[in-house]
C-alpha cells in the first residue's frame, strides 16, 4: 500500500545526555539540531523553516535562529507545554503543504536537573499577571498533586486501581532495560510501584516520570526533498491538536484533550486506533497514559485500567506496545517536556531501528501523542499518525 503524505519526518535525534551540567540551553538546542540534520542527510543551510517552543532561551525562535545561523523564511513558536513539538509536526506539515518552507527543523532542549528545579513537588508560577494565578498558586498546586486529583477522580468514577496504574510503569521498565541511555533501567513489578513512597495520593514515586536534561530534534521535509533522501523517511499521515481548560469552573478531570486531537488525526489519516502497530503516549505520570489511551479510543472511557493491566502495553507480550524507549516514566523527559521523545521513538519503530528486544515486527503504522500544561487545569493535546515508507 502506498498512502499519500503531505510531508515526511526525515531526521530525528535524541540527545544522549540526561544531566547536562556543563552545557548551556542554546548549546543543547544546537547539538540536537545538528544530530537530526545529520540523521536526515541534510545540512543547516537546507533549513528554511524553524519551530521551537517556550524552552528556547531569550526571544525563542529569533534567539536560536541567530545562535545556529539559520536563514529561514518560516518560523513557528507555538507554546503548548510538553505537547508543543507534536503540535509543531502538524504545523510543519501544513506549512510545507502551503509552500511556506520545505525543510522544517523542530528543536527542544533544557536542563532542569542541572538547575536543581523541584519539577514536580513545588508550585510553578507562570507569572503574577496570569489571571488564574491568584486563585490557584496559594493553594500549592504542583505537577504531581494536580495529576493526582485526576487519578483520584478516575478511580472514584470507574474503579481504577493503583495496581492497574502500576502496570503502565511496569511496561515502561520492561522496555527501558534495553535502553543504555535510560535513567531507570531496572525492571519493576506492580508491587514495587505500589510500595514506593506516596508522593501525593494516589500517586507513588514510581507513578511519576524521571527528571532529565537534554532534548531532541526533528526534521520534517516536503515529498520532493524526501524523495532524494533514501528510504528512512517516515510519512506524516494525520495530525490533530486540541486544548482543554477549566471552562469557567466546569471541571472534569477524567478526560484529556486527546478526546478531540485523536479523532482529528485519525480522520485526516483515514485510519482507526485498531490500525496502529505501535503507540507513543505522553507519560508524565501513569494516569496520563491511562486517560489518554481511553480518549484516543483504544478502549472505552473508564476501561483503561483493565486495558493496561497484565502487560498489555509490553512489546512482544501485549496487544498494544507503547513507549518502547522506556518513555518519560523510565528513559527521558527532557526539560519536563515529553512530546519530542514520543515522536522520535515512533519514528525509530517505523524505520525498524528500535532496540531489537522491543522492535515491533512489521511496524508500519504508529501514533505519537503529546500532552502539555496540566491535566488538572489547562492543557494542550496533540496527536500525529505516522507511517513507514511502505505504509
Amino acid at each position, binding site marked *: 500500500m502506498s498512502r499519500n503524505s503531505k510531508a515526511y519526518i526525515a531526521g530525528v535525534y535524541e540527545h544522549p545526555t540526561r544531566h547536562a551540567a556543563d552545557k548551556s540551553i542554546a548549546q543543547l538546542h544546537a547539538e540536537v539540531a545538528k544530530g537530526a540534520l545529520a540523521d536526515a542527510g541534510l545540512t543547516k543551510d537546507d533549513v528554511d523553516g524553524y519551530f521551537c517552543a517556550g524552552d528556547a532561551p531569550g526571544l525563542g525562535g529569533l534567539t536560536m535562529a541567530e545562535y545556529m545561523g539559520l536563514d529561514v523564511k518560516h518560523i513557528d513558536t507555538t507554546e503548548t507545554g510538553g505537547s508543543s513539538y507534536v503540535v509543531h509536526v502538524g504545523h510543519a506539515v501544513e506549512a510545507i503543504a502551503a509552500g511556506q518552507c520545505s525543510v522544517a527543523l523542530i528543536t527542544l532542549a533544557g536542563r532542569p536537573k542541572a538547575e536543581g528545579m523541584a519539577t514536580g513537588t513545588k508550585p510553578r508560577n507562570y507569572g503574577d499577571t496570569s*489571571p488564574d494565578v491568584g486563585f490557584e498558586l496559594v493553594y500549592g498546586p504542583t505537577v504531581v498533586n494536580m495529576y493526582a486529583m485526576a487519578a483520584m477522580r478516575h478511580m472514584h468514577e470507574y474503579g481504577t486501581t493503583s495496581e492497574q496504574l502500576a502496570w503502565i510503569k511496569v511496561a515502561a521498565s520492561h522496555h527501558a532495560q534495553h535502553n543504555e541511555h535510560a535513567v531507570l533501567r531496572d525492571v519493576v513489578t506492580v508491587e514495587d510501584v505500589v510500595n514506593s513512597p506516596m508522593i501525593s495520593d494516589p500517586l507513588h514515586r514510581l507513578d511519576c516520570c524521571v527528571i532529565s536534561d537534554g532534548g531532541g530534534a526533528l526534521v520534517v521535509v516536503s515529498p520532493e526533498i524526501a524523495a532524494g533522501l533514501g528510504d528512512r523517511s517516515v510519512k506524516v499521515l494525520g495530525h490533530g491538536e486540541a486544548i482543554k481548560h477549566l471552562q469557567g469552573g466546569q471541571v472534569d478531570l477524567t478526560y484529556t484533550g486527546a478526546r478531540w486531537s485523536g479523532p482529528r488525526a485519525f480522520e485526516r489519516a483515514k485510519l482507526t486506533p485498531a490500525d496502529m502497530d505501535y503507540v507513543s503516549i505522553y507519560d508524565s505520570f501513569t494516569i496520563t497514559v491511562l486517560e489518554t489511551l481511553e480518549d484516543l479510543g483504544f478502549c472505552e472511557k473508564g476501561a483503561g485500567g483493565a486495558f493496561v493491566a497484565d502487560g498489555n502495553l509490553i512489546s512482544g507480550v501485549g496487544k498494544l506496545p507503547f513507549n518502547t524507549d522506556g518513555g518519560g516514566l523510565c528513559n527521558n523527559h527532557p526539560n519536563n517536556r515529553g512530546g519530542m521523545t514520543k515522536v522520535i521513538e515512533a519514528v525509530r519503530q517505523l524505520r525498524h531501528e528500535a532496540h531489537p528486544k522491543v522492535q515491533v515486527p512489521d511496524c508500519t503504522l504508529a501514533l505519537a501523542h503529546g500532552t502539555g500544561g496540566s491535566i488538572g487545569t489547562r492543557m494542550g493535546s496533540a496527536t500525529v499518525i505516522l507511517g513507514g515508507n511502505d505504509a
Partner: protein
Amino acid sequence: MSAQQKTYVDPPATVEAERFWAATANGQLLIGHCNTCNAVHYYPRSLCPGCFSEDVDWVPSSGKGTIYSYSVMRRAPVPYAIAYVTLDEGVTVLTNLVDCDFDALAIGQKVTLTFGDTEGGKALPLFKPSDG
C-alpha cells in the same frame, strides 16, 4: 494524619481581582454571575466565558459544596490537602481542605467555607468538612 494550621503565602492579585480579596476580608467568596445568560463561572473575571457578555456581577457563594477530587501532598514540609470543591451554585473551585483528618477525606463529602490567613493579612478561602 491531620491538617496542620499554617499561614499561607500571599496570592498575587491583579488589579482586576482586588475586589475578590476585599470581599474575602468580609467573609465572602465571590463567584462570577452573568446577567445575560444567567450562568455562573469561577474564577470571577471581567466577562462571561460562556457568552462573552460584560454584564457580569461578582456575587457571594453560599459557601457550601462537595469534594469533587482531592490529594494529600505527602511529600511537602507540611503535608496539605489540595482539592477541587463543587459549590452548590454549580462551579468547581481549587482550594485546600483544612480542620480535617486527611485519612477520612472522601470524594462527595460535604464541605463548608472557612478562611485562613496569608502572610500579608489577606483572608484566604478554604474548606472544611461540614458538621453532620
